[in-house]
């Protein structure tokens, strides 16, 4: 194991996070605050409780998921794509690092950033609404696992992207709609039966539901289904990355 190599990538990527601290942290904090002002305070005050939970508090897990999914994906995809774009990736290829170690470095850094952002959003949300975390270990489990999974997904996006536009397509056209429609701001029980069934096809619903359970012990689907879903996505990403590395596609000539 090239421990120093993995550490070098991790520190290098986290340095970029530090260099762009304002946009890395300010952007999710401001966005989250705006959501709480609009949905939590302005609109939320007119919405009755959901499953016995104040609306402002109810949307906190969904808000965190929305940010984590997009941040993990964009951080990881940008990190690897930037190396390809500047051609500095030559050094990674020339170094004694295995594919696993390269992924560990890039995905690890993106996941750490996402977890930090997630925790900061929880603190920010605490200024606007009351938050209870019934199962802190389960909450941390979902936070870390979701960050790792979507960082892996982002790594794949970054590997396959042929331009900066390609980096934006998945977060904007796939992740954001799935998160909004996955019960971030509502319970699917509030939807007509037909749309409830359609919503069950959305994997993000299971992540938000499980995460919300760790906060308030309420969920749209069973906790076990949520855990199975996150592991399924994680394993799919690992298998896809392994296949890409074995084939060498989009990595080396």
């Amino acid at each position, binding site marked *: 194991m090239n421990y*120093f190599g993995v550490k070098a990538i991790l520190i290098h990527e986290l340095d970029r996070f530090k260099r762009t601290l304002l946009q890395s942290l300010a952007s999710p904090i401001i966005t989250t605050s705006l959501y709480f002002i609009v949905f939590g305070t302005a609109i939320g005050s007119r919405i009755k409780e959901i499953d016995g939970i104040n609306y402002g508090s109810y949307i906190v897990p969904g808000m965190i998921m929305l940010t984590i999914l997009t941040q993990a994906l964009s951080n990881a995809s940008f990190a690897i794509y930037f190396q390809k774009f500047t051609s500095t990736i*030559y050094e990674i*290829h020339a170094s004694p*690092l295995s594919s696993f170690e390269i992924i560990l470095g890039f995905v690890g850094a993106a996941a750490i950033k996402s977890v930090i952002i997630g925790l900061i959003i929880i603190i920010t949300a605490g200024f606007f609404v009351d938050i209870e975390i019934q199962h802190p270990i389960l909450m941390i489990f979902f936070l870390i696992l979701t960050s790792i999974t979507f960082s892996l997904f982002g790594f794949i996006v970054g590997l396959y992207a042929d331009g900066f536009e390609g980096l934006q397509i998945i977060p904007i056209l796939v992740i954001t709609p799935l998160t909004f429609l996955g019960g971030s701001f509502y319970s699917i029980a509030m939807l007509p039966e037909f749309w409830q069934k359609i919503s069950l096809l959305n994997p993000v619903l299971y992540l938000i539901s499980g995460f919300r359970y760790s906060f308030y012990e309420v969920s749209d689907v069973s906790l076990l289904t949520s855990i199975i879903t996150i592991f399924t996505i994680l394993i799919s990403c690992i298998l896809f990355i392994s296949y890409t590395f074995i084939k060498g596609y989009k990595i080396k*000539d």
Partner: protein
Amino acid sequence: MKNILEINNVNKIYRNSVKALDNIELNIKEGEIFSLLGPNGAGKSTLINSICGIVNFNSGTIKINGYDNVKEYRKARQITGIVPQELYLESFETVWKNVNYSRGLFGKPKNYKYVEHLLKLLSLWDKKDSKIKELSGGMKRRVLIAKALSHQPKLLFLDEPTASIDVELRKETWDIVRKLNQNGTTIVLTTHYIEEAEELSSRVAIINDGKIILVDETDKLIKKLGEKSIKIQLKNEEVNLNENIKKQYNFEVNKNILTFKYNIKEDNINLTKMLNEIENNGYQIKDFVTEQSSLEEIFIKLIKEDKKS
């Protein structure tokens, strides 16, 4: 001297079906400076990128210090460094962070004293806290060299180290290469500047269309394939040379200068006899100079011959 690099039957075909390397066989000796010469698109960069793990080759074996660079890639890459042709650097990072990052990637623990020594050697110490974007082209190239040397490799590849840089900087780079070699690093450089190969390397390989046409010691190559010419200036203003002598030596006559071309490997040439014959025909020799073909001329000749075949 033992071989630090052994390349056997290496082939590389790109996805667009271009055969970039065609049965490459090459050995590099420990401690030497070796030049890989060839025109643009000959396969020089593909070859060194294949050795360093940047490009996957299709068949054959590459051994670095005895380690297979695919099966034992960790051991092989730990002792190899590469300076790419282009200035591939992260503009917003400092010199210091860039070099320490490279050392880490190659699995080495922090060693600030060594990095300091390296930056001083490459005259970059006073720029250690500068961001890459603030440096000149020459400094950026030296940062690339520092990065490649950060893990103390035994074998260093320089891909066109002096491409598109001015004469002064070229000389400076040559001095660095010599210094590194004196410190024990084996150096393989690709270049299309013959002067560079002639100046720096003890051995040369000429590569064209993915094939190695020739490998030899630089001096021997010049001797073996080099053409020599003797320009004989006569005292007489007008020269009306005897046809027999003219034919025998195939002289080119230009006013009172006779040019005689011969290959140094031909041992049946008797220059004393030739000069005597000129004098015996009533001409007095005023002066003469000898000229030897440069590596560049040899290179052009070999490429042309290779294309014909």
